[in-house]
């Protein structure tokens, strides 16, 4: 077992016990994203609250443990934060994932999401990890546009 194993306990935990899974009403925007190369899918809803806060992120989907766990972590990190805060987390997560294993993760910003650092070395898996996060960014833009 190597130090940087992709399957951190935390990822498996989120996979087996996903947080906030299921599609909930009401919502401001719903998006459906697919990764055509591996068939991973996610449907994701965003509900904005007061003072630029994210009131709820609800989702449903299918795919590998990385894609599913990433959605669960996303739910935890975004719900209750301001839109602005969450978008900077998304940016940091994207930077980490696209860094090909050479980027140092900022734990303060990423929290639990640092568990995905090992994924960055596998380009084919990066898309799995990013699927829900890209869907979230998309949904936020759409809900803000309403």
């Amino acid at each position, binding site marked *: 077992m190597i130090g940087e194993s992709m399957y951190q306990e935390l990822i498996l935990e989120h996979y087996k016990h996903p947080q906030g899974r299921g599609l909930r009403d009401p919502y401001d925007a719903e998006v459906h994203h697919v990764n055509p*190369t*591996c068939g991973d899918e996610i449907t994701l809803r965003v509900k904005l609250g007061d003072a630029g806060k994210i009131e709820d992120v609800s989702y449903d989907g299918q795919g590998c443990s990385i894609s599913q766990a990433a959605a669960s972590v996303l739910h935890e990190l975004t719900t209750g934060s301001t839109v602005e805060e969450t978008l900077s987390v998304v940016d940091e997560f994207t930077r980490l994932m696209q860094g090909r294993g050479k980027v140092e993760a900022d734990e303060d910003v990423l929290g639990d999401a640092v568990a995905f650092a090992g994924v960055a070395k596998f380009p084919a898996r990066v898309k799995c990890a990013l699927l829900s996060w890209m869907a979230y960014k998309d949904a936020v833009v759409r809900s803000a546009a309403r």
Partner: protein
Amino acid sequence: MTSTSLDVERIRKDFPVLSRELPGGRPLVYLDSGNSSQKPTAVVETVREHLAMHYSNVGRAMHALGAESTEAYESARDKVAEFIGAPSRDEVIFTKNASEALNLVAYSFGNPGNTDPRFTLGPGDEVVISEMEHHSNIVPWQFLVQRTGATLKWFGVTDDGRLDIADISGLITERTKIVSIAHQSNVLGTINPVADVLRRAREVGALVMLDASQSVPHHAVDMAALGADFVAFTGHKMVGPSGIGVLWGRAELLDAMPPFMGGGEMIEAVWMDHSTYAPVPHKFEAGTPPIVEAIGLGAAVDYLTGVGMEAIEAHERGLTAYALDALREVPTLRLIGPDSLDQRGATLSFTLDGIHPHDVGQLLDDEFGIAVRVGHHCARPLHLRFGIPATTRASFYLYNTTDEIDALVRGLHHVQKVFA
């Protein structure tokens, strides 16, 4: 145990990476040769020695190093020609990979400057492929029919992973200009009934191309006996270097085809407003070719011939029999492809209930150093056909052992425990 005349322990010593430790102290169990094979010292050293001590451009250079490189490069062509039983060495064209070879042939059709009726293509004409093809034998033909207005048709695949030739006469008709199918599937392991396809194609005057990327590395394949018109394969899957592939074609067809890429080496004479072209094979080798890579491929076929293609085939057959048995014992494992040894190679793709192949592959690697391939293996339509997004694939080669298959089975049990 497999019964074979091949000393696998001795062979493993020829491949330095096989005794490597992966980070974290894992041994390497390499079951991904269908994706790309490992390289024996003989190939690595040929590449090194040529690059370091004999390198120069080929053909055009008229000095000692030029002669050494040209001689080595053209000898590699001789070796490959002999390895595949090509009627003529000039029918062996070096490309960068199998994909270029397939694209080269696809681009030969429907070129407005070429009036040879075998290579004209337009609305009403048809191209036939199959549902089990690698993307490299699908997309070039999609491009072709998009450019020309011709129609793309395809063989289906049966539930047990065979080419569905039930309606071969309805599929291959007088309108068919070319049929291009895999000799052996890179997912199912299925070896396709080339003779049946050829027979029908000949009846209607269609050309036949075989994507032999998965057969030439594993079986003695003889161009004359095979009887196809074009055959593509790739060096990196047959213990050769990356950056080198092969197109074999019948000389009279290659002569009739327009050139594909233009540039140095492929010309006879150039004026500003027109050019004449070199005879094959050079007509299709524009620019400086992958010189050292071709020479490395020559060393690879020498190596394979030294071991013996019959011995390699027998060894892989033994491994496949062993693996088919062993995998049957893994709960919920579903094999995608023939479950008997009949007309199949050493490639086994499967699913496990409720566990995504990406997770299977990554855990096998993370915990045991077992390298398998997971995903759609560049054959997405085949996976759509079976209603699954992905499979896990183990593929064997001359250096694999039954111990490694045991390790795979143990690994799969572990994966099932982790995700239980």
